């Protein structure tokens, strides 16, 4: 199964494109990294792939089929700030089960304590909210996960915990992951391949520049001793 974005262009004005003819392809079970300078359009690309942003040119498809609307989207997007992704008036258990009933396995894999389910969002830290956001998005119907700087705001230990859980579940469910991050060291640890989105001239045009393999995709460092 492949999630494909083809000839994607996006801009608020015609002469100032943020994305210009970008092609991207993500396969099931693949972990693909995406780097690029601030403002190179990474987040916009993520929103387009997940169907949040609809005013773009080009096509987004899964195995040649257009994305469904008004149905569960097999492409789920996770953001940098989880506190914006939860309704502050909902309890954590309602937030968690909004899309589907999250299995106990997923909960324990993300280290979500049962006592947290009765709390309100403002009683949890960013790292814990992010675990909830991920558990909520990783349902059996989810085929692709787009992770836009999801561990930028958490401490290093939580970062390892979160990534280990994601990779573990993604492998079981054969989910493809697009990892957006500034942190090259993290990408080296979690991704099979990394692509780069960058600015090529001052006129405001962006293009897909480079596609390079990272050194061996071993996740050796992930295994706890």
């Amino acid at each position, binding site marked *: 199964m492949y999630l494909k974005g083809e000839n994607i262009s996006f801009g608020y004005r015609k002469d100032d494109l943020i994305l210009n003819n970008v092609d991207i392809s993500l396969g099931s079970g693949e972990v693909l990294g995406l780097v*690029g*300078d*601030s*403002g190179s359009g990474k987040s916009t690309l993520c929103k387009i792939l997940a169907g949040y942003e609809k005013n773009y040119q080009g096509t987004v498809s899964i195995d040649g089929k257009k994305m469904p609307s008004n149905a569960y989207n097999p492409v789920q997007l996770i953001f*940098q700030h989880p506190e914006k992704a939860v309704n502050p008036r909902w309890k954590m258990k309602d937030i968690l089960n909004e899309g589907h009933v999250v299995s106990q396995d997923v909960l324990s894999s993300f*280290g979500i*304590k049962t006592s947290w389910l009765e709390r309100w969002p403002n*009683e*949890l*830290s*960013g*790292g*814990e909210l992010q675990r909830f956001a991920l558990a909520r998005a990783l349902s059996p119907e989810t085929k692709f996960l787009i992770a836009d*700087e999801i561990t*930028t*705001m*958490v*401490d*290093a*230990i*939580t*970062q*390892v*915990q979160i990534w*280990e859980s994601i990779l573990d579940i993604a492998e079981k469910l054969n989910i493809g992951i697009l990892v957006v991050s*500034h*942190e*090259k*060291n*993290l990408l*080296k*640890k979690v991704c099979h391949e990394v692509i780069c989105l960058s600015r090529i001239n001052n006129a405001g045009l962006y293009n897909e520049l480079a596609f390079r393999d990272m050194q061996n995709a071993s996740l050796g*460092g*992930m295994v*706890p*001793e």
Partner: protein
Amino acid sequence: MKSEVMTNIIDGSGSEALLKVRDLSLSFFQYTSGLRQTELRIISNMNLEAYSGEVLAVVGSSGSGKSLLAHAILGILPSNSRLSGSMEYKGQSLTQEKKEELRGKEISLIPQSTTYLDPLMRISDQVTGSVEKKDKGLMRERQRDTFQRYNLRPDVGKMLPHELSGGMARRVLVSTALMSSAELIIADEPTPGLDERSLDETLRYFKDMAKKGCAVILITHDIEAALKISDRIAIFYAGTILEEARIEDFTNEGENLRHPYTRALWNALPQNRFQKMEGHQPMQDELNGGCVFFERCSIRTEDCSKDIPQLKRIGEGLVRCNNVS
């Protein structure tokens, strides 16, 4: 914490710290159910010393309340908070009046978000805003120099904040702190979401300020950023400081680090071993009076669950643990 124990235990040379924070605790009053007001402790028994010419990083996970430390030093806490402990600035007690007097002059904040700029005010007015009228001419001169140093075109001064890019806005904030004759600069989470180049650039500004003789407190969740420029790093965990170590101690497998949490944090970095540690940081209402790290600790003893360990000096650093020496 006894103050005589704390005095100059970090800096053996005996030079006075610019800012000393002793035994600082901060709590909030919240209505829990119905009409009951409960006290929620965010920071407990915090100790810090900031020296001129040094960058001190306070590293802790986001949402842990470390930004409130900055607000406490500047005296901009909300009215439902209670602060205890003492703060000294240049050897004098830092009272609320004193904080208000020094704020923006000798003590300056570089805020987390660029929305702190007044959207309706020209940049040059904001940058020179904190100085007295008679020095205006001189300040314009200094502004030109500072702008040049930070790669801001002279016409940036005439712009309004919305005309700036994110990076420019950040540089403007840094220039503002530099233009005021601040001696203590507190940077609150200045780096998230920056790409590598902008990150390095921003961090270099802080280093520059320290070189000019300022004391810089860098509050961040990003230990890598802290490692790049700091002289000392204080590890903030569940409302208190677990360890304060000199930058040189962060090497190899972390064998020079004293606290097991710091060592785990170091080994969890992607460029190191990316090694996991189980458990999570306890929330304030999950603490039970013992060591805040008790549940995750590998070297704990029974005594650790009884009392919060004292901060003690080991070598060049400080550590809050009973079982290291």
